[in-house]
């Protein structure tokens, strides 16, 4: 695909119908928590975009973030997201090795300087000059600083890149830190999670391509549309918390009845992520639905935040939206809570066909 060819033209050449693309955009709108009627507007915007160059750097990590992304959806739908970007460097996925691999990174940087997206997974060790993790003889620190300079924006994928994650856990022998601890002069999106939800990675990319800018972020740099609410607030077991019905052990009556896992150490009340609705493995389930509390993996220092099985000492805050209305059985319900989640003004027009301008407001 040449740089001057739009995604829409590319899809037509490949025999992918507009209807199929519209279907893909419907899934994207759902992921991005945009009003469900916005698929048509997204399709229009995306089909006109030129795909950006993406350089993916993997540092102190376990490759689960890449596993998560490449296992997202079926090969055909996933290939659509890869049609949207030109993945020019990813040392786990690329065929090139050695000098030619590094040259492809340098070429990509040169060709799209100031415009490419930089994706980082893994923490960056900075102790002793950063010698604890090197690629092609260069430290991660050095490589990050060089590639970040020419990036339009940086997407930190996974808790390690976002907050330091497990490499940063005590006693942190390598001095591992997050991307945002090193790079201060670029827009950074943190897509935390261990691993992060694949739909969130693709959703942020789609948002960037649709709107030409990064999504709205919370105070920890995470996209609000996915991290705006806690697991607890969106958990289907939430009503049991409100009723004071708790499982006390993993095999008691309460556990069998599917009651709240708060007393078994569930970190849902303090964890912001989309697991409770997006779920895992193609929407099959998520930890709480499988009977285990949330570990809080999308929050900073989750590994050092005490036992996974000790109850949180703080009580959970008041329920903000969505479920309360659902429980009360009142008419505000579903469509409104979807819109609230997006924190978009387009909320009120959730029932109408939205334009990109509406959605940007």
């Amino acid at each position, binding site marked *: 695909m040449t740089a001057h060819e739009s995604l829409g033209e590319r899809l037509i050449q490949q025999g992918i119908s507009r209807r199929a693309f519209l279907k893909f955009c419907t899934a994207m709108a*759902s992921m991005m928590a945009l009003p469900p009627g916005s698929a048509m507007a997204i399709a229009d915007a995306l089909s006109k975009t030129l795909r950006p160059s993406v350089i993916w750097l993997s540092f102190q990590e376990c490759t689960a973030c890449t596993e998560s992304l490449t296992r997202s959806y079926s090969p055909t739908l996933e290939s659509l997201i890869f049609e949207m970007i030109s993945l020019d460097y990813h040392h786990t996925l690329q065929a090139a090795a050695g000098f030619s691999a590094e040259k492809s990174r340098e070429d990509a940087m040169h060709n799209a300087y100031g415009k490419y997206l930089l994706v980082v997974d893994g923490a960056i060790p900075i102790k002793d000059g950063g010698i604890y993790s090197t690629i092609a003889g260069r430290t991660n620190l050095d490589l990050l600083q060089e590639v970040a300079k020419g990036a339009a924006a940086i997407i930190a994928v996974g808790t390690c890149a976002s907050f330091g994650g497990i490499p940063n856990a005590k006693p942190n022998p390598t001095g591992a830190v997050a991307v945002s601890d090193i790079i201060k002069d670029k827009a950074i999106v943190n897509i935390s999670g261990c691993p992060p939800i694949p739909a969130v990675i693709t959703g942020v990319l789609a948002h960037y391509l649709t709107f030409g800018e990064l999504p709205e972020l919370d105070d920890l740099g995470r996209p609000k549309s996915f991290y705006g609410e806690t697991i607890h607030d969106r958990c289907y077991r939430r009503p049991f918390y409100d009723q004071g019905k708790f499982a006390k052990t993993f095999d008691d009556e309460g556990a069998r009845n599917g009651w709240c896992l708060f007393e078994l150490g569930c970190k849902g009340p303090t964890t912001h992520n989309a697991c409770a609705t997006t779920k895992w493995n193609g929407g099959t389930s998520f930890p709480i639905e499988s009977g285990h509390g949330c570990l809080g993996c999308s929050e900073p220092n989750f590994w050092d935040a005490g036992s996974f099985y000790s109850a949180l000492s703080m009580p959970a805050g008041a329920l903000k939206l969505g479920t309360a209305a659902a429980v009360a059985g009142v008419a505000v319900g579903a469509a409104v809570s979807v819109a609230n989640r997006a924190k978009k003004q387009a909320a009120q027009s959730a029932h109408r066909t939205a334009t990109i301008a509406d959605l940007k407001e």
Partner: protein
Amino acid sequence: MNFPPIHAQSTYSVGNIRALMNEIVACLEKLDRDDEIGMIDLNSLPFSPGEYEALRQTLGQGEVSIRIEAIGPSEIIETHYPGVWWVTHYNVEGDIVADAIEIAWLPQIIRSQPEDVRAGLARLKAQLNDQD
């Protein structure tokens, strides 16, 4: 030691169905009165196990069911309540990628898209030229 078998509770409702039905009523009224289309994204709702199935049962199946093949199947059924459509998109592996209730005279995805019509027209013309 003998442990009693553990069965996940799967039939209770946390109240989503009633809220959704009220929402659908409001959307249907808008469709009838203002010609306004409504959509409810089911993927973003915290259903308890069993509630989703209960919603399917509650809405039932009406006169129309349509299947689309576009990078995996899509299933569109008009429910027992005319104007209330259940639109489910699957990928080629059969996982649900989008799932919504659309309150409309006809769901958007069913219409032929102008881009596809133009591409098809070009193909048809090319075929005619080949035969000349």
